[in-house]
Structures are given as structure tokens and as C-alpha cells.
């Protein structure tokens, strides 16, 4: 089930009614759990067995880990959990990819190996709930978190529908404590949750699906080079589309959860105003980047083992982060580029700052302009633009169907191939330009703010008017069936 569907509207209304009836807390949690299974089963019912398997195995492995002091046994129980979760993920997500590359490797050695291509359907959300359950067993193994005695609480932590299929990737401490005491949304939480749900749907339905998807899909699907302006427009359209799609989902998830009285962690913090790549990853898919930091980068040694090793760790983390998104070399390249940019940034930050008098000279020049800006703001603004430029370059690999298409697109963007035809109509290009500028300006303005702090200051009539405009645009756009991009990851 997707948030942008009539089924969800009906489901959510019924669930809100049930959640607010005077049942016992346990009954309400059972309702939530059953609703979460229903939410998942309406995609593809058989895959619910995988979810149950993961839930049951991790619940019991964590208990076994916690009750034994024997190091080997603890490791063994942890290994069972890791092998099961990562094994399922590998089979469903990377089975075809591994076979394809194995066949290519054999062919490069002159060995003809032709295996039947496995017809594997990726269970929706498997990348997300695998990371959720893994963080639980690893945290219990590290004795950071005591195993949850209640199977109901644990099952609900894994399956809780707002985060189940596309995040945010929750940690045990994010949710399990919230299930221990009765919770019901206050009127403020309910209204703010509904506002966030509307905002998320506006981002998804109106901007991502309604305005940006069509031109991006069109240009990226063409088998021939296009005009440089069209290539840039398509990349910027995808850039806006993927942000509004995924941040839209997270905003919906947080809003829906708030309506039920639970808070979910923030997943996006205006990433297109990031100054540099470490800042970008503090703002983009925050729950994934912190997961990778805590369960991969730091265990690899983080930045504690010297400069060179830090760079290696960064690259490994980002390459695997790329691969997490999908079984394709393009995702690996995307992750590799982000890793490379992070390494370069780290290298530059290590270089001593320039002389103060140079900065003063720059200050004077900038202050002499008619724009009332401070030099630091200006340099940060330019750095944010430069970061966004590089982020867009990496999106080419993320979106293109294969490496060849990505390279062709880049050659068009940088004017190496100039003879490609013009493909996008003026209204599409105008939409992309307006959305891109608006998105960047919004992110820059909101860089150090929160949605709540900004909208919360508005007078009620302005908030109500903005809210209604978003809802009207959602109704007018009428795209109700398309699923979120991140479901495929």
C-alpha cells in the first residue's frame, strides 16, 4: 500500500478510529501490528513470510545473545542473525546481479557459462527492514540495548507500517520504548501529523510525480544523445524528483506516525543546501548514513587508524552504501563518487587555512557590491551551489539504466556531444527551472531551521491557506497510483 492511494486513506481512517477507541494498550498494539501486516500484505502477500522469519529469528537470537556469556556462542548467535538477514537480502536483491557478473567473468576467461536467469521478485522494503532488525541484534550483541522481552513490542518495532517499506530506518531505541507506555496523539500531534502528511504528499504527488517524473523519465529513456540543455534539464528534474519522492515519503511516514502518537526520526534536513559532502550526508537519508556510520564505518576503524585507512574506510562505506541501493554497477559508481568527494573534502579540510588578509580583501570586494551579503555567507552559498552541482553529476549514474547511457548523458551535459536534438518542450523546461530554483532557495533558507519552527510562526490563516493550496494541488494533480522510487531499493 502506498501513502498516495485511496486504499491508504480508508486504511488510515479506520486505523485512527481503532487506535482512539478505549481498548487496552495491548489490544491497540495488536491492532497496529495486524494493520502493519495488512499494509505490507496488500503488496504481495507471500513475502510476509520473510518478514515473519526475520522477526522471529532476530527476536530469539537477541535473547540467546543476551543470556550467554560465552563469547563464541554470542558470536555464533549473532552470525545466525547476520547470515539469515544478509542472506535473504543477497538472494533477493543481488542473486541475478552476482550470476550476471559471474557469467561475464567466466566469459572473459574464455569459459562459456550460461545459467538460467533467476526470476526473482524483490520483496518490497527488504533493504529497510533488514537494516532495522540487524541494528537490533548488533546492538544487543554490543550490550548497547537489552533485548526486548515482549515479542509483541519487538514485532511491532520491525513491522510498524509507517517506516516498514521505505524508512526512516529506525533503531531499537527510537521505537521500542515508545511501545511500552500507552500513547495517543494529542490534538497538536494529530494536526501537525496531518499537516506533515499533506506536505509529504504534495512533494510526492505534485512535484515528483506530477511535474518532474515525465521529463526525467523521457530523456533518460532515450537511446540517443540529446541537446546539452535537455540533458541538464533531465538531471535537474531527476534531482528534484528523487528528493521530493523520498523526502516526501519520509515526511508522510513521520506525519502518519505522529497521528498515532509515535515519533519517527528525521530523515532529511534540506540536503540541497549542503556545504560539502559530509554536510550532504548529514542531511540526506540521515537514518541510512548514520546506520552505515555506526554499523560499518566505525567497526571498520573509522578515522581512528590513520589518514590512509580513514580514506579506505570512507570508500568502502560509500561503495557498499551505493550497492545497498541496488544491484547495479551504476549504484556502485554513484557511491564511489560520493566516497571520492568525501575523501577530497577531508583532504582539503586538512590543508591550513589561508592568510587572514586575503579573506579581508575578499570581504571588502564583496561588501562593495550592491547585494547586502557577508563574505562567509557568499562563499558558503557558492560552496552549496558547487556541492549541488557535483551531487547532480552523481545522480546521472544513479538514474541512468546503464553505464553507457550515463556516460552519454555526461558527454551531452558538458558539451562534448552537441549535435543531439532538442527534445523537451518549453513548458517542461520552465517547470524544471522553477522547481530547481525554488527547491534550492527553500533549502538554503531552511538550512538551519525546521519545518515546524518556520510554519509554526505563521499566523493560523496563512498556515491554513498554504495547507489548502497544497491539498488542492494534490487533488488537481490526480496521480494516485505511482509508487515511491525507494520501494525498488
Amino acid at each position, binding site marked *: *500500500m*502506498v501513502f498516495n*492511494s*485511496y*486504499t*491508504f*486513506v*480508508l486504511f488510515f481512517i479506520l486505523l485512527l478510529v481503532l487506535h482512539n477507541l478505549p481498548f487496552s494498550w495491548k489490544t491497540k498494539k495488536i491492532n497496529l501490528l495486524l494493520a502493519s501486516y495488512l499494509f505490507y*500484505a*496488500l*503488496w*504481495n*502477500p507471500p513475502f510476509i513470510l520473510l518478514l515473519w522469519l526475520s522477526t522471529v529469528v532476530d527476536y530469539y537470537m537477541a535473547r540467546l545473545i543476551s543470556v550467554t556469556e560465552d563469547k563464541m556462542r554470542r558470536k555464533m548467535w549473532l552470525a545466525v542473525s547476520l547470515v539469515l538477514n544478509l542472506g535473504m537480502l543477497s538472494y533477493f536483491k543481488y542473486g541475478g546481479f552476482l550470476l550476471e557478473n559471474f557469467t561475464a567473468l567466466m566469459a572473459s576467461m574464455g569459459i562459456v557459462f550460461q545459467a538460467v536467469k533467476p526470476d526473482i521478485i524483490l520483496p518490497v522494503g527488504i533493504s529497510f527492514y533488514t537494516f532495522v532488525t540487524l541494528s537490533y541484534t548488533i546492538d544487543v550483541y554490543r550490550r548497547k540495548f537489552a533485548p526486548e522481552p515482549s515479542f509483541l513490542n519487538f514485532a511491532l518495532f520491525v513491522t510498524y507500517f509507517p517506516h516498514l517499506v521505505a524508512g526512516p530506518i529506525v533503531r531499537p531505541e527510537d521505537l521500542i520504548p515508545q511501545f511500552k507506555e500507552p500513547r495517543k496523539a494529542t*490534538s*497538536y500531534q494529530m*494536526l*501537525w501529523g*496531518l*499537516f506533515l502528511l499533506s506536505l509529504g504528499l504534495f512533494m510526492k504527488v*505534485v512535484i515528483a510525480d*506530477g*511535474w518532474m517524473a*515525465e521529463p526525467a523519465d523521457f530523456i533518460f529513456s532515450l537511446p540517443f544523445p540529446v541537446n546539452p540543455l535537455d540533458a541538464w534539464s533531465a538531471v535537474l528534474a531527476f534531482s528534484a524528483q528523487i528528493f521530493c519522492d523520498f523526502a516526501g515519503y519520509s515526511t508522510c511516514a513521520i506525519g502518519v506516525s505522529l497521528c498515532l502518537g509515535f515519533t519517527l526520526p528525521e530523515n532529511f534536513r534540506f540536503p540541497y543546501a549542503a556545504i560539502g559532502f559530509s554536510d550532504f550526508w548529514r542531511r540526506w537519508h540521515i537514518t541510512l548514513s548514520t546506520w552505515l556510520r555506526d554499523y560499518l564505518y566505525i567497526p571498520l576503524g573509522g578515522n581512528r587508524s590513520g589518514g590512509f585507512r580513514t580514506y579506505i574506510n570512507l570508500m568502502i562505506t560509500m561503495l557498499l552504501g551505493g550497492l545497498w541501493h541496488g544491484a547495479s554497477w551504476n549504484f556502485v559508481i554513484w557511491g564511489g563518487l560520493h566516497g571520492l568527494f568525501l575523501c577530497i573534502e577531508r583532504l582539503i579540510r586538512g590543508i591550513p587555512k589561508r592568510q587572514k588578509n586575503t579573506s579581508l580583501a575578499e570581504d571588502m570586494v564583496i561588501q562593495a557590491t550592491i547585494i547586502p551579503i557577508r563574505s562567509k555567507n557568499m562563499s558558503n552559498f557558492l560552496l552549496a551551489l558547487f556541492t549541488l552541482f557535483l551531487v547532480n553529476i552523481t545522480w546521472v549514474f544513479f538514474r541512468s539504466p546503464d553505464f553507457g547511457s550515463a556516460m552519454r548523458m555526461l558527454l551531452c551535459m558538458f558539451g562534448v556531444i552537441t549535435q543531439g*536534438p*532538442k*527534445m*523537451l*518542450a*518549453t*513548458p517542461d*523546461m*520552465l*517547470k524544471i527551472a522553477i522547481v530547481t530554483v525554488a527547491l534550492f532557495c527553500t533549502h538554503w533558507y531552511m538550512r538551519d531551521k525546521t519545518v*515546524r*519552527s518556520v510554519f*509554526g*510562526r*505563521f*499566523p*493560523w*490563516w496563512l*498556515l*491554513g*491557506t498554504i*495547507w*489548502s493550496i497544497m*491539498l*488542492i*494541488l494534490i*487533488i*488537481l*494533480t*490526480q*496521480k*494516485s*497510483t505511482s509508487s515511491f522510487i525507494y520501494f525498488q531499493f
Partner: protein
Amino acid sequence: METHDYKKAAWLALALVLLFVAGWEIYWRNQGFALSFNDDESLWAHNRKKIYNTAPGQPVIIGSSRVKFDIDQETWEKETGYKPVQLALVGTSPRPILRDLANDPKFKGTVLVGITEGLFFSADGSFMEDRAAKRLAFYPRWSLSQQVSFQLNHILESNLIFLDEERFSLNSLLKRLPIESRPGVFVFPNFPLQMGYTMANRQEVFSDAFMADTAVQHGVQYVWSYLGMLETKRGFSGDTLSNIISSVKGSVDKIRARGGSVTFLRMPSSDPAWSAEKQTHPRELYWDRLLRETGAPGIHFTDYPELSKYICPDWSHLSPADTKPFTKDLIRIIEEKNRVTLRKTSAIPKIQ
């Protein structure tokens, strides 16, 4: 300082949205528009599910817009007692759908294939197959959630005119803004808003406004001209054509082997579209060859005075009034041609 008037904001938003929705609906109703259903993936998939209820009188209709307009499903049901399954797609070659039916081992029914030569005889993987390919890819993934949404959406669409995505969605209206496009860029032309509507059974119908206003008819004719309907360049030949016909024969043979049948239909078109089509796809090189090599029966409108007496107001589709007698005659001709009875009642003698 945060405002605490969220309730007031929410009530205001709700009031504004309700006001807008009511006003928007009233506006389009006052403009004379009728209810129209979105002919989207879900509506197609909903019909695709019905193909297994076999009976000669309950054929699966595939093709492009002509069979969607010209075969009046109400008349068909009245005459035969069966509801046909309408799977045709506007502007699309039906070959991928024919292949899909042929590859479905559970399908043993009758297929009527509308032939619009420019679309039907297009190369594999061409733009003409794109929409059909998307529907075919969607059908197996049509989740339970989407099916529930479809049912809920159906109730809303049955009551609200503005939910017509094709005409009144934000994107559709934005596309109609008078913004000059970049030179050299192909922009798909807009059909006049008053052209027609889609019924719940996927029947396409010209609106009263279209029938009454020649300016609207000219608007549609302009779109056809812009899309190249009047061009006279000869269609595919050689290996490409042979491969197309050979693949169609493969599909026809598979359906026949399971006890089903395939009949090709060439629906009427009018000058100047018909005269252009005669040049691009001469009958003997395309239609006759298709029937000869596939061994399937075919009904060409020019062979029957009762089918060829109509003038298509937009050069390509019949008027709503004409579709009724046309469908009656078509049923009778199919029965005679295929030596079957399509009718449920025994009042009409079985032709053998």
C-alpha cells in the same frame, strides 16, 4: 513563538479545499462536460481479468481507438446478451496484447483485432507498442492495494467530472497554456477538451458538443494532420513486414490451437484519412497478405455496403449515433463470416 491555532488553520484549510472542489466541479459541469473515466492501467487491468469467461459472443476486443469508438458495447450486449471485453488502447499497436493473449495458456476465447495499418504494421519495440507494453507489464503487478484503490476511485469518478485526468488534471491544463515551444521540438498536440469521453467499460464516445460544433471537429482533424495521418509515405515492407506478419501468425496459431479464434477488423475511415491510408498501406500488400498468411478471417469495411456507408466526423471514428447500427451489422457479419452465433438466446437460429 509558535502559533497554537492549528485547529483554526486545519478548519480553514478544509473549508477552502471543500469550497474549491465544489466550485471546480460546478464550473466544469456548467461548461457542459459529461462524466468520463480515466482509461488508466487499473481500468485496463480490471478488464484484462475478464478474458477467461469465454463465449463467442463475448470476444476480447483489441486494437486502437477505432474499435474503442466504433463497437458500441451497449448495442453488442443488447444484441448478443454478452458484454465484450474491451482491451484496445488508443494510438497503440495491438500486437503485444495479441501476443500476451496467445501466451496465456488459460485463454481460449475469441479475439477481435482492430487493424489501423499505420499502428498495427509498426516495428517491434516502436513507440506504437509503448503504451501496450506498459499495460502488459503493469497487469501482473496489479497489487491488492491498487485493486481496492481502483474500486474506491471508480465510485469517485462515477460522481465527479473534474477527476478526469486526461482533461482536467493540473498537468493537462498546464499543457494547454499558450506557451510557444522551442523550435524543432515535437510537442504532442492537445485534443479539444470537448472531443469526447470514456465510459466505465472503456467505450470511447464523441460528445454532443463535438458533434454539434464543426470547429471542435476541425480541432481533432488538425491533430490527426499534425500526427501525420495524411502523409502518404509507404509503410514497412520487406523483412520487417514479413517478421510482423509471421509473429502475428504465431500468435493466431497459438490461440487457435487452444480452441480460440481470431478475426481481424478494418473499421471505417473517411477522406482524406482513408485516401492517405490507401496509399501508405495498399490493401493487397497489407490487409490481404495478413489474412492470407495468418489464415484468419477478416472483415474490411469496404467489402460491406452496410459498414462503408458512414462518414467519420473526424475522418477516423464513427459518430455515437452511427456506432449502434454499425455494431448490429458487424455482429451479423461476424456470425455469417465465422459461421457461429454470438447470441445468448436461442431465438436466433445458429448458423452452420
